[in-house]
């Protein structure tokens, strides 16, 4: 089945928020953001802004009729700054005008008098000053303190992992339309319509049912519109509330990059202990998460970091500590992987350091310690699966890892200016919201009397292919063509209390809700068909290919005829399905439980060639073995794998968020913040899947039709690039103790290769001569 919106996309007919023809009298809003990263507001001068011709309203915290609060987990985030500012770009005032240009002129006319306060950008510094958010968390298993004595080798190290800007190509935007009776309808680009509804109701002081959020589709999100879309929906809503007219806000790329939160930078310290053979006996890590100025989703992100801090490995003694640290950056937020990547990255750094110290191949230590079917995660959940090893071994075998290794050894022995590296990156990623109650979803399915179907769920289409999956699920369940199914916009008046489209769980949750709704309708239609066909009961009745079958044989009754008769027989042709993932739980007091429905596994082999004179590099290939289950749509799933990989590769290589000591983002545009393009991505990306018959992981998988989550896990394959590069760098400079600092931009690679600051030191100079002689 083709992507359900493909025909619209290629004609340019898909409508994003501001592509919908503007309603009469549509106004535009722009936001004045704090110029300082931390300060006390003395005065805010709005006079000049109000005098700009075409400006209709200038709104501040004082104009919020309800509560000035939009923090999703902890109430620590004002919608508009009041008294103090905590990061550069923090919304302080809204200008509403007849055009976007005039609104921005109004913003430029605002002056803020502010007394500077100390700025913190480093999470460890924040921790040192006790600037923490929520409570520090520790997951422990075994006795790590006692275990060090049993280890033949104990090593410590530190990692400095950069953040990541989402770069959804469609920037944040929202359009609010006043309705009768003080209601508002908001067309928002959000992964979390319910969060938008809840927060708008909160700032306006009205019941939830006065606020309708409608979402057709998103031009990308990747976690950046999970809770960070709420702010802009609130801006549009508050502006419409005050002016009584429709109001739209569309952020420029510069505004979006400056004002919104990103993937969390982490600073982490690890300690790892191994046997002489290479078995990891003990592992301890402390993660200092750079949460930014407000909690946003940081505590939940931190939780997932801890739950993924041992990666794909079985380690008997662990202590995993993490703390969210308050700094003066925009509140950092969800980004594909949701803290998991950072936890896994640090584990891989520890293994790399150990392998380097022991003179063993990294892959040997990795393979030796992979999770097995009888192992438990540090939080107590059994793996129940041998998939960490199955996927690794299939990747190594099907892509001939030994041959890759020998090609690289050969290249490095015969080339001086370029060195090649390879790394294997195993992935084990838990599927479910770790906040158990969020694992619920609803679907509303209407069969119209002409046989066409309208389907609503709480899931948001953001390019991940959700609507394609849902239409396929409904079509299979009802036995009809997918073309009969219209997947409607996501709307809070049709689906209440929806969880965000996140945690790789959107198809799992909403797809199961669709099945539950479809099966109700199917039961009613089968009973009716049995009556129409004079059968004793519906047991032998099924519907396939739009025909009613009895005992598998066509009974001469089509879907449309059946539906038409059902309508006249006064059969309910609408159904609501509600799904909650069974058997998941987590106890934060003991840090033990089974928070995940199951885990997705895989392994990727990444090869890179490094130009050791320039620091530039080419990714030669990425070869993946992935645990996909029974794919609902293999092209959609492959697209998710390749796209996730691209973001993971970008995170550890090109994408460099640099902040000045004053908290200012120094790479606030796509000119300075580089994301992977078609040329950067390798030509050679291969993916194969574990045979479904071998699926030891299937029993616990509640995915619709045996499908598995695929949104986030592939991102972490990209981490392998860091270690492939590290290996190439070490081939050039085996004498150096390379730091674990990500991203490895070409600039950072070059600086690391030449810490002396120049090229012509003796070992290199002689090697250059040798190379020239060849």
């Amino acid at each position, binding site marked *: 089945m*083709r*992507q359900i*919106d*493909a*025909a*619209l*996309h*290629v*004609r*340019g*007919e*898909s*409508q*994003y928020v*501001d*592509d919908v*023809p503007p309603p009469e009298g549509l106004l535009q809003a722009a936001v004045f953001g704090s110029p300082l990263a931390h300060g006390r507001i003395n005065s805010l001068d709005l006079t000049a802004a109000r005098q700009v011709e075409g400006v209709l309203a200038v709104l501040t915290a004082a104009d919020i009729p309800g509560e000035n609060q939009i923090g999703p987990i902890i109430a620590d985030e004002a919608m508009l700054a009041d008294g103090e500012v905590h990061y550069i770009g923090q919304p302080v005032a809204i200008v509403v005008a007849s055009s976007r240009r005039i609104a921005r002129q109004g913003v430029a006319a605002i002056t803020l008098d502010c007394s500077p306060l100390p700025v913190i950008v480093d999470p460890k510094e924040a921790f040192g000053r006790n600037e923490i958010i929520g409570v520090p968390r520790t997951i422990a298993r075994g006795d790590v303190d006692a275990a060090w004595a049993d280890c033949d080798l104990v090593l410590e190290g530190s990692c400095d992992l950069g953040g990541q800007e*989402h*770069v*959804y*190509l*469609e*920037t944040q935007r929202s359009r609010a339309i006043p309705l009768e009776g003080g209601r508002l309808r908001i067309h928002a680009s959000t992964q979390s319509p319910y969060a938008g509804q809840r927060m708008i109701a909160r700032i306006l002081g009205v019941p939830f049912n006065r606020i309708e959020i409608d979402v057709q*589709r*998103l*031009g*990308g999100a*990747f976690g950046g519109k999970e809770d960070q879309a709420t702010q802009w929906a609130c801006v549009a809503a508050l502006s419409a509330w005050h002016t009584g007219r429709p109001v739209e806000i569309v952020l*420029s*790329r*510069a505004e979006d990059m400056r004002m919104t939160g990103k993937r969390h930078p982490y600073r982490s310290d690890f300690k790892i202990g191994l046997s002489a053979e290479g078995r990891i006996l003990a592992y301890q890590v402390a993660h200092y998460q750079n949460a930014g100025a407000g909690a946003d989703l940081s505590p939940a992100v931190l939780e997932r970091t801890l739950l993924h801090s041992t990666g794909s490995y079985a380690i008997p003694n662990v202590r995993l500590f993490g703390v969210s640290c308050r700094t003066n950056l925009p509140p950092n937020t969800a980004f594909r992987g949701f803290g998991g990547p950072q936890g896994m990255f640090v584990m891989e750094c520890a293994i790399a350091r150990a392998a380097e110290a022991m003179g063993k191949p990294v892959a040997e230590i990795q393979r030796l310690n992979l999770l097995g079917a009888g192992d438990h995660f540090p939080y107590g959940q059994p793996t129940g699966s041998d998939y960490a090893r199955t996927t690794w071994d299939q990747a190594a075998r099907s892509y001939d890892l030994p041959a890759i290794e020998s090609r690289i050894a050969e290249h490095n022995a015969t080339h001086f200016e370029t060195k090649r590296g390879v790394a294997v990156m195993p992935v084990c990623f838990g599927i479910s919201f770790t906040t158990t109650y969020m694992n619920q979803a609803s679907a509303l399915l209407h069969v119209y009397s002409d046989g066409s179907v309208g389907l609503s769920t709480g899931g948001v289409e*953001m*390019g*991940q*292919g959700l609507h394609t999956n849902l239409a396929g699920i409904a079509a299979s369940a009802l036995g009809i063509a997918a073309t009969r199914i219209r997947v409607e916009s996501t709307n809070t008046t049709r689906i209440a209390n929806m969880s965000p489209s996140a945690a790789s769980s959107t198809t799992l949750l909403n797809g199961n809700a669709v099945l539950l709704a479809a099966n109700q309708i199917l039961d009613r239609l089968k009973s009716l068909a049995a009556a129409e066909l004079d059968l004793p009961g519906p047991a032998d009745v099924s519907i396939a290919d739009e025909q009613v079958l009895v005992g598998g044989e066509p009974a001469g009754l089509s879907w449309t005829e059946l539906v038409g008769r059902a309508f006249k027989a006064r059969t309910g042709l609408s159904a609501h399905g509600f799904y909650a993932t069974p058997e998941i739980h987590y106890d934060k007091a003991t840090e033990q439980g089974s928070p995940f429905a199951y885990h997705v596994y895989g392994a990727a082999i990444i090869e890179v060639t490094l130009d050791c004179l320039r620091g530039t590099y080419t990714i030669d290939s990425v070869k993946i073995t992935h645990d996909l289950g029974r794919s609902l749509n293999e*092209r*959609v799933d*492959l*697209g998710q*794998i*390749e*796209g996730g*990989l*691209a*973001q993971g590769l970008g995170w550890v290589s090109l994408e460099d968020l640099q902040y000045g000591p004053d908290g200012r983002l120094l790479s606030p*545009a*796509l*000119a300075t913040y580089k*994301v*992977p*393009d*078609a*040329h950067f*991505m390798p*030509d050679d*990306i291969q993916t194969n899947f574990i045979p479904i018959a071998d699926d030891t992981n299937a029993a616990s998988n509640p995915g619709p039709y045996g499908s598995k989550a695929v949104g986030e896990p592939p991102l972490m394959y990209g981490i392998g690039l860091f270690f492939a590069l590290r290996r190439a760098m070490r081939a050039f400079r085996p004498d150096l103790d390379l730091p674990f600092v990500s991203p490895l931009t070409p600039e950072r690679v070059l600086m690391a290769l030449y810490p002396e600051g120049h090229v012509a030191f003796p070992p290199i100079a002689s090697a250059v001569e040798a190379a020239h002689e060849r």
Partner: protein
Amino acid sequence: MAQQNITIKVNGTDQAAEIEQRLLLVHFIRENLALTGTHIGCDTTHCGACTLILDGKAVKSCTVFAVQADGKEVLTIEGMTTNGELHPLQEGFMEEHGLQCGFCTPGMIMSSYALLQENKNPTEAEIRWGISGNLCRCTGYVNIVKAVQYAAQKA
């Protein structure tokens, strides 16, 4: 602000308007003509979502003034179909699943169009260079490259 009369042939039809001289071409296309298939992604020529064809060449319309297009011909994504028939590139992006959220798709198709105008039979490397001024954040470009190859073979 200074106004100017312009006439641009957009997708085969002359469009005359009196506009502000500093109006950007992308705003003219999106707001004055309501052709919203051309998107704005970065405002600074880096992402390519606003790519359209101006007198046969691909330009990023977020950094072209509408007055610069006066007397010229513009082709946008809306003009790619002929009598309802999809262009081979549109077909390619659809058949090869060269799209996910769809936001970059029109610009990607227009850049590919310019590439194929210049080079009817590009190698994979030439395709990758040809579309390297267009960012897609959803895919890994694998199927976008295939979509262009599909169109090249078909044409």
